[in-house]
């Protein structure tokens, strides 16, 4: 139980405090923004993959992996949301407004970095898919290039998780 929780049992309507609302907005942003970023990134990769597969269907497995790389940010956002929802004990406890704002702030790194890094990783994936289309033997190296963008999503994920866990 977090130190900011003020009540554990009450009527359901009374549990939706301002603090809970702030926390839920942060959690929603973590899921929505990182999810949007991943959807855009995977969609870009998908279009490039379709272009390559039209000419070289035998490269399906390789381009699929490259297409899916920007999808991880959406999962990171979901992970942070699950942990935060568990911590605020939504539906069971009431949060003070300051506590809610802290949860909101803790969710922002993965929300914002997740959105931008997924879109940028999608662009890097598109370039790598084109590279694999031309030189299938470079798959290993081509995969590393968009994977580098993942570093920053992981850093944001760590900050969000560590912050939420310590509230």
């Amino acid at each position, binding site marked *: 139980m977090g130190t900011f929780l003020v009540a554990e049992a009450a009527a359901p309507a009374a549990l939706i405090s301002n603090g809970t609302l702030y926390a839920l907005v942060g959690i929603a942003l973590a899921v929505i923004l990182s999810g949007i970023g991943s959807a855009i990134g995977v969609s*870009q990769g998908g*279009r*490039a*993959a*379709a*272009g*390559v597969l*039209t*000419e*070289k269907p035998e490269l399906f497995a390789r381009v699929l992996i490259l297409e899916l790389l920007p999808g991880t940010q959406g999962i990171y956002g979901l992970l942070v949301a699950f942990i935060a929802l568990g911590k605020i004990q939504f539906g069971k406890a009431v949060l003070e407004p300051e506590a809610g704002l802290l949860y909101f702030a803790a969710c922002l790194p993965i929300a914002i970095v997740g959105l931008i890094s997924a879109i940028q990783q999608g*662009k890097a994936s*598109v*370039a790598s*898919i*084109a590279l694999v*289309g*031309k030189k299938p033997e470079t798959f290993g190296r081509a995969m590393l290039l968009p994977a580098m963008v993942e570093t920053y999503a992981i850093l944001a994920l760590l900050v969000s998780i560590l912050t939420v866990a310590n509230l």
Partner: protein
Amino acid sequence: MKTDYTYAAARIHVKELSLLTRADLEQLAGAADVRAALQLLSEKGWGDPEQELTAENMLRHEAEAAWEVVNDLEKDPAALSVLKLGKDYHNLKAAVKQVYTGSSLPAERLFQPGGTLDAGVILKAVEEKDWELLPAPLAQTAEEASVLLAHTGDGQLCDSLIDKACLGELYRAGKASPEEVLQEYAVVTCAAANIRIALRAARSRRPLSFLLDSMLPMEELDTKALAEAAYEGKDAVAEYLETTPFAALVPSLSGSMAAFEKSCDDLLIEHMKPQKNNSFTLGPLAAYLLARENEIKCVRMILTGKQNHLPDEVLRESLRMTYV
């Protein structure tokens, strides 16, 4: 909303693998005869297996195939119109001559594929003088060319009128295009045409007024300065070009016109090369199409050289820079 070309660019980048390399062209130039050259091309996937293996069949098939690929991928038919304008004006030239001077050549040899309009529509417009069938700039040129040829019978004058109109329209459309690659194509093509006029005039000492009238005014090249240089001679043209973005063409000015044409084609391909690393815009499609046209031109030159028994060395010297 901006059109997305991610799918098209990725597909085109794979198709670039089938473009001929410099080594392929050299091997072709070293082939024993036309038959051997055609066989080599056939092994690389050129031509239609269902057609007889002749140079004309193969080249026509490849030109049509290149446009088919691009038309299949092009989402906005107007986007690549800059590259198609040349074909429209070529077909207009052929149609005007067909109608006013008559020609026994079959339509497939007279007209080129890949224009914004079907060649049949252009021919019908000229035959029936129904200019409304054509878009405004082409209609005006068609009418002027028809009147000129009907009154003078001078095919060269007619060609010159259509060529200038074509360049003007190409430059206007290219500059208006949001695609950098199409802007570059229009600028290089029009600059090359102006320099070509200057070089020919430098040899024949044409009057300055004729030169200024023949050249297309453009931002990137001061046509007045170029015309004045041409009036002084070839060295003055070279000296002026050194101060422009087209200095790469200067070394070729000391050679033949064929060397200059090669240099222009190489400059255009050099401008297209960055598109090999572009995965999001129309650029790779335009570059692929120009690369295909460049290689078809190169293969045509080699096959013609083989038919005329030109030495391999001469053919190798005329080989263009390749895109891949």
